[in-house]
């Protein structure tokens, strides 16, 4: 097999194993808030990782672990943050919805619709300084009906800012179906209204997402202005761990999990191309082993000292 194919497969498998390890912390209350996993959406993170440079910026959402890992955020620091440890990326102050890694220009927000404006700020900075970088603002289908979606694409287009708007259309804003609140079949068609490049891709076909993301990122990086990539996908689990998820029919979930699993799809494709099942199994086992060992290690880390609860409100003592 070509190295790149195996790497893509491994990347997706590691993203899933990371989230599966995190899920272990929910019933034990080690993660004592909600947890949003990306299971079923790994192809998008893996594809993004192929095109981004360390200087590019990514602003993600409440469902952000795979975007963070794709941007190069150290997995251990991220998992420790999700498990609320002092050793975490943000010393346990942020938690799983609010990871910040300024060295890698990665951040996220827990508020739907709030990611794009921050990404626009990074894009503005790149344009101001004449730097060849892009800012990726990620949102879901739900956020595309938020005012910021219109405002940011409009400003990015008006000023020619290097903003890549990546929409993960998993068809549900918690329980509200995209088709119940939107007249158009998708979101990519809105790009024309802003004079932006618009593309739609099957977000569970990893090689197609790699190509599509590379195309829009290249367009934007070369000064073509903002681009809008809609990646269709399906959330395999509830909105958060513990979600009763009674708003989606059981039959629909079973069918979609089978049809829209990027890892299973890619595995079939690779086997058809001659990959050895055993080699793929080893990759899966190695990723699970890596993440289990990481979790076991993190479990030994200290929780933040209560004496520091008031630290970091201000940069300077006031």
């Amino acid at each position, binding site marked *: 097999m070509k190295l790149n194919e195996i790497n893509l497969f491994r990347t997706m498998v590691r993203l899933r194993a990371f989230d599966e390890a995190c899920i272990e912390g929910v019933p034990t209350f080690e993660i004592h808030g909600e947890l949003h996993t990306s299971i079923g959406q790994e192809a998008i993170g893996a594809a993004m990782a192929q095109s981004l440079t360390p200087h590019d910026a990514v602003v993600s959402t409440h469902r952000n672990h795979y975007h963070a890992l794709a941007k190069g955020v150290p997995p251990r620091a991220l998992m420790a943050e999700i498990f609320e440890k002092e050793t975490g990326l943000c010393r346990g102050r942020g938690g799983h919805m609010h990871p910040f890694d300024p060295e890698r220009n990665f951040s996220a927000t827990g508020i739907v619709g709030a990611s794009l404006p921050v990404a626009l*700020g990074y894009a503005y900075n790149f344009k101001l300084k004449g730097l060849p970088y892009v800012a990726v603002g990620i949102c879901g289908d739900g956020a595309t009906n938020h005012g910021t979606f219109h405002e940011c694409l409009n400003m990015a287009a008006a000023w020619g800012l290097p903003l890549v708007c990546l929409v993960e259309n998993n068809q549900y804003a918690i329980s509200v179906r995209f088709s119940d609140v939107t007249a158009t079949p998708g979101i990519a068609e809105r790009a024309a209204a802003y004079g932006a490049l618009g593309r739609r891709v099957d977000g569970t076909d990893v090689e197609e997402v790699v190509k599509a993301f590379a195309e829009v990122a290249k367009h934007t990086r070369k000064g073509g202005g903002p681009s809008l990539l809609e990646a269709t996908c399906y959330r395999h689990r509830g909105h958060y761990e513990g979600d009763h998820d009674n708003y989606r029919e059981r039959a629909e979930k079973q069918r979609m999990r089978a049809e829209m699993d990027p890892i299973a799809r890619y595995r079939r494709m690779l086997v058809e191309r001659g990959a050895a099942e055993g080699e793929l199994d080893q990759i899966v086992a190695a990723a699970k082993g890596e993440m289990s060992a990481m979790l076991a290690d993190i479990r030994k880390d200290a929780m933040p000292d209560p004496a520091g609860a008031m630290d970091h409100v*201000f940069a300077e003592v006031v």
Partner: protein
Amino acid sequence: MTADMAANMRKINASQAVAESLFQEMECDERVVILGEDVGRCGGVFGSSRNLLDRFGPMRVRDTPISEMSFTGMGVGMAMAGLRPVVEIMFVDFIGVCLEQVYNAMAKIPYMSGGRVKMPMVIKTAGGNIGSAAQHSQCLWATFAHLPGMQVVAPSSARDHKGLMAAAIRSDNPVIFIEHKGLLLKQAKEFLNAGDVPAEPFVTPIGKADIVRKGGDITLVTLSASVEYAMEAAAQVAGEGIDVELIDLRSIVPLDVETVAQSAAKTGRLLVVDEDYLSFGLSAEIIVRVLERLGPSSLRQLRRHAVPDVPIPAALSLEEVLVPGPASIARVLREMAAAS
């Protein structure tokens, strides 16, 4: 302030002072960028960003569409990317449109990141009563002060407008800079307090109150345009033998409780005048903090004079009975003096 500075004093108004501070800070630090509605071609609807576009160009002086939520969030991203944005929200009343980015992003990201991210961002906005009725007259400084993570500055004198804006821009913390519309429109020669402004760049430290008038009978604490009103009132009652000590807070986060408490301990009487709403606000906060410091029975008199909990009406006859002004402040001072 140096002797050279004292030699280069001019009478300029608050709006000119802010614009001059922005100009000088942008000259010496290319990371400083201003954005908002009408900040460029128009120079700000109150003129407080005049002369910037011509000198610094549209990438650093950015007229925005009416998209407050997104351009405020854009400021957050710019600050995280290493710039020092000044985001203008034309009237503080508009903050409802973009409060999400203000209190969930700008104010919280330094903490949520465990101190890894700095947020050197200023929100510059106009507040206060000038007869513009309910949706264009609020102060709202207590609203920002209630939400953790922001410094909240509201200058009074033209000199402080310049020095505190420089401090806000140079701070690594997010700063809400509330200009009073009445002060922005006031002529330079009309300022009672510190109308002389040095031509050179200078910084007025954020967090230190200014004792504008020394006195021994009543401690009067306020900020922004009410400092000017209180000076008028204090002058009125001085002839009647009431000697007011007037403190201009300058900022309410941080709040200089020490200066207020020292004065109150001396006079035994504390009056807080606040153009913001009364309930759950600045006046109660100051009184409680002073009592926490000095003891619950340390003072003889406590009074609050603030906007009662009602939207600001359009009619002058109604506005006048709700918003503190020189006459109403003098009346409260006389009542306090008579009661003791």
